[in-house]
């Protein structure tokens, strides 16, 4: 987090937003004990870069960081981080939200939730 902040900081920035997706302890009131993220690495990195490039076309972005972890994560841990630095704050909010919304829709990463009584690939079934 500190290194991401140092990286996006620049004298031209007036606004910096950070979004952290963290592991919640419950889904639909079932108790989540841990998560596991699996990724199609090559395509996930490519898609994340495409999303960041598109954000840079749409908004005046000075610097950004997008990171997604994989493997086993426990409650409270950070799964995804999006940091955006812009001259003015509307761009920082809009770009950050675009990046995380699009990432969740298109980047090939899969989340499995482990409950005390079973495990589920999130959103796999209708």
């Amino acid at each position, binding site marked *: 987090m500190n290194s991401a902040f140092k990286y996006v900081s620049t004298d031209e920035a007036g606004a910096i937003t950070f979004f952290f997706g963290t592991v919640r302890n419950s889904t639909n009131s079932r108790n989540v004990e841990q998560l596991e993220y*699996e990724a199609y690495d*090559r*395509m996930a990195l490519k*898609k994340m870069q495409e999303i960041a490039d598109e954000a840079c076309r749409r908004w005046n972005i000075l610097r950004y960081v997008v990171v997604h972890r994989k493997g086993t994560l426990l409650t409270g841990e950070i799964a995804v981080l999006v940091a955006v630095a812009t001259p003015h704050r509307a761009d920082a909010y809009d770009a950050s939200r675009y990046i*995380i919304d699009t990432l969740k829709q298109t980047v*090939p*990463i899969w*989340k499995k939730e482990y409950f005390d009584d079973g495990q589920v690939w999130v959103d*796999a079934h209708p």
Partner: protein
Amino acid sequence: MSHRVSVQFFGITREIIGASTLTLDLPQPGRVGELLNSLKAQYPALSGLRSLLVAVNGEYAEPEDPIQPNDEIALIPPVSGG
């Protein structure tokens, strides 16, 4: 005439197939839709997913897109990153 393609599986499709990679024989030139149909016929549980896409060389592909030998093919079940 057919050619062999290697297909990668992730998440729930990896569990349904029971493998991370399969090598399949596809009629030449194969199409994405044929690949999908052939897999769904062999593994009916794939049809129960909310969506099922195919990526060719790291790009989402349409059913009519061709599959060339040496293409990197992957099955993409509903994503849930973030």
